């Protein structure tokens, strides 16, 4: 990682102290850090363990106090029952349809727009880019009602169009991120492609896009989780239960089966599983992406 030591690491000291005191000090510091990290890891993990444990308890053992961490017996049928009570599979399918179109839109539009902002000189470019950044600060509440009005007027209520179409017009956050990255790619590459007779679109497609691969991955992964967790959008725009996404469907589940916590936790576990799997595969990109967001002003 080649990074500066943080305050706690012990670099080679310029003024050597007694070597053995130093070693003990390092040891104690590390011990404290490890302990702190283990406690914090437990704080992160225990809610999940609690969720899974509850999801496997029978209706009677669920209410035992003090609670048992390991259910006896394992009630696997909670899961089939959760699927039976609510069409989780259908909700999941609906969510994935929206995911597909939003991710496609976000990747296409943000790549084109970021390319435009980083590779061409045109009048007002800087001002327009400032506006891109400024739109990140517009609170959602201000645009929510007019958007509803607009989509209602277009006859898009109870379709997936309000949830998918806006993604084809770029997201300021991703445009910013991709432009940051594009500016690290030398212009010589573009020049060389131009000399070989490529037009700007061919340059984008053949030269830039392959280099942008990791940025595109970040857009895909971030968009996936955003869409997956979005609750208000589907809540506002969808009426037909057959069209519900997982988020809205789950909320219905809570209000319908509010006290059957084992079933609710089985539903939650199922709903979180895709995100956990995605996270497992994409954590490097996610964490790296967030960390390199470039908050350097």
């Amino acid at each position: 990682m080649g990074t500066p030591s943080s305050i706690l690491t012990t670099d080679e000291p310029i003024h050597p102290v007694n070597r053995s005191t130093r070693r003990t000090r390092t040891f104690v510091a590390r011990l404290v850090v490890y302990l702190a990290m283990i406690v914090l890891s437990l704080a992160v993990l225990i809610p999940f363990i609690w969720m899974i444990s509850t999801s496997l308890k029978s209706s009677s053992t669920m209410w035992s106090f003090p609670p048992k961490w390991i259910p006896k017996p394992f009630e696997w049928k909670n899961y089939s029952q959760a699927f039976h009570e609510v069409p989780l599979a259908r909700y999941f399918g609906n969510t994935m349809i929206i995911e597909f179109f939003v991710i496609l839109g976000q990747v296409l539009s943000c790549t084109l727009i970021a390319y435009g902002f980083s590779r061409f000189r045109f009048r007002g470019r800087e001002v327009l880019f400032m506006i891109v950044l400024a739109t990140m600060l517009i609170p959602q509440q201000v645009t929510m009602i007019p958007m509803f009005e607009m989509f209602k007027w277009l006859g898009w209520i109870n379709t997936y169009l309000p949830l998918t179409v806006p993604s084809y017009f770029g997201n300021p956050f991703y445009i910013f991120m991709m432009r940051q990255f594009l500016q690290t790619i030398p212009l010589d590459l573009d020049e060389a492609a131009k000399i070989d007779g490529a037009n700007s679109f061919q340059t984008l497609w053949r030269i830039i896009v392959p280099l942008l691969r990791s940025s595109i991955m970040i857009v895909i992964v971030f968009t996936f989780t955003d869409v997956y967790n979005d609750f208000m959008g589907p809540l506002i725009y969808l009426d037909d239960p057959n069209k519900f996404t997982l988020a809205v469907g789950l909320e219905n589940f809570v209000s319908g089966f509010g006290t059957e916590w084992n079933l609710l936790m089985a539903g939650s576990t199922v709903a979180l599983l895709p995100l956990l799997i995605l996270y497992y595969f994409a954590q490097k990109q996610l964490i790296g992406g967030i960390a390199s967001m470039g908050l350097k002003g």
Partner: protein
Amino acid sequence: MQATRRSKLVRNEGLTGYLYILPWIIGFLAFSAFPILDSLYLSFNHWDIYQPPHWVGLANYRLLFRDPLFYKSLEVTLTYSAMYIPLSLVLGLLISLMLNLKIKGIGIFRTLFYLPSVISGVAVSMLWMWIFNKDYGLINYLLSLVGIKGPDWLNNPHWIVPVYVIMGLWGVGGSAVLFLGGLQNIPKHLYEAAQIDGASVWQRFWKITLPQLTPTIFFLLLTGIVGSFQVFTSAYVINGRGAGGPDNAGLFYMLYLFNQAFQQYNMGYASAMAWIGGLISMILAVIVYRTQNKWVYYEADLSNKGGRS
């Protein structure tokens, strides 16, 4: 001739550039500029979504400033930010310092701490409802182990906001990773110079690490303010279909706005709320923004101040 050809080239380049950013221009007009103006217009109208909007002047605003629930929702939201933002900054920074250490298994911890910030939404709200259940929940069980009788978190007006703060802090790994990025961008020579000068660990933290992280703190402050005005999903689910919770102590601003708009169909009133809420968060953001000269250090400054003295 040369000159005209070049200007034509430049013009072509400009045109192509505009073409590439055209989707954004259309999107900006349709999904930002128009909605903002329309929202202002709607706030002077009565609109129940069935009948076309009709002009009522300042009536919505007059009603709003006499509405105790408006003040309540503002209070809930601001209390939440006053608790959540400082705590998340301190905790996020502490975690990032640990995550920046070169020790065994650090990758696992980084992965683990970031996990909760990826998963939000309904399923997680359901999980926390169960965790904070007064009789059978995990929190009160753990408290009972140390002899404390936990409160009825979700039905007690004093405890409901802290519950949201705790839920929010569970996802603090998100800010920790941002801080981590900031930490890794600090030039190493600053520490080397400080060490030569014999600066202690604490001095190095206060004089180098913290100032260098101010852009991240600034960013998190801004997004934290805007973000607390957007708290919705958890409040909607936990209070049960958008009710306000005990004594409306869980009536976040966005939740009240949503109720007015999509449950009562007071679209004009909700638009007025949107504008006032937007203005308040904007004013807070501007205050933070205005103070940045005083405490946010950017790289340009440091190239003069840093280095070896």
